[in-house]
């Protein structure tokens, strides 16, 4: 029983390591880390919800090779990202640049939050002003009457 369990665990583990497909071939750990970090920031265009670090698509592998080559050629991260956006557009970046066409994208959440706060404060304020006014002496007298059951207008049960 124990043995089969251990074997099963090992098999699972093998699967996990196999899935790590962004394994860099660079031997230098610093550049290898850079490659993986860059690849994780770039969207795979074939399977759009994956980065090129995660994707199994051929194109993703080619683009990972490009990243690796350019790191080896001494390019900076910004230069490599520029190389990708020149070909595939801002869409390849998981973190889009801040510019006129992406204003709504970047500021939208803040605007929505501000609008929400505005609505909330107005509602709270409106509630405060329309709070139930304190009972007048007449109201108190009427309450007394009602409780004592001597109210003339009360419907008979």
């Amino acid at each position, binding site marked *: 029983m124990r043995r089969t369990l251990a074997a099963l665990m090992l098999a699972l583990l093998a699967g996990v390591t196999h899935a790590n497909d962004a394994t860099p071939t660079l031997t230098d750990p610093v550049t290898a880390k850079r490659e993986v970090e860059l690849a994780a920031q770039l969207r795979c*265009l074939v399977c*759009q919800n994956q980065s090129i670090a995660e994707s199994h698509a051929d194109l993703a592998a*080619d683009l990972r090779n490009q990243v690796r080559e350019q790191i080896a050629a001494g390019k900076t991260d910004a230069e490599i990202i520029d190389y990708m*956006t020149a*070909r*595939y*557009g801002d*869409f390849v970046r998981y973190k889009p640049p801040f510019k006129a066409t992406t204003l709504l994208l970047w500021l939208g959440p803040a605007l929505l939050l501000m*609008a929400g706060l505005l609505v909330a404060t*107005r509602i709270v304020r409106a509630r405060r002003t329309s709070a139930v006014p304190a009972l007048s002496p007449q109201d108190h007298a009427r309450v007394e009457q009602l409780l004592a059951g001597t109210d003339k207008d009360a419907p008979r049960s």
Partner: protein
Amino acid sequence: MKRSLFFLIPLLAFIVLAAFLLRGLWLNPSEVPSPLIGKPAPQFETPKLAAPGEKFSNRDMLGKVWILNVWASWCGPCREEHPIWNDFSRKNLVPVVGLNYKDQDETAVRWLREQGNPYAVSIADHDGRVGIDYGVYGVPETFVIDRTGVIRYKHIGPMTKTVLEEKIIPELMKLGGRS
């Protein structure tokens, strides 16, 4: 008065959101606008298909309006669009250059023999580098390039009769296609 306007805010917000979502229904998320449109076509020099000794460069086409069609024998939709290119080449409007993307020359040549060869020139991009320079991510892709070597139009995915007649041919006419 003020209060009634205040209650319009959620309604307005809903209308704006609904408008965005409605627009989204008719957008194709797999079509990524190319940043290359209106820019000079990236330079390349690559061997001709099945003739590794002969080179072809996009500069060879300067002065002509031309179409670059990226295809591969392993690509299903390429087979689907191919009859359209066969028909188009018979019209002799502009030369179509076929870029065989990440393929083997032998299978590509056999594929062209079976499906027909609409290409004025066939070139090979064995390692996909030209493809990357042109921002190719889904074969087939089609580029319209003008006399000065500027990319004017890009179509992603299989060419259809509608796109050809309503987009590509008018674009060619505008650029003074018949060269």
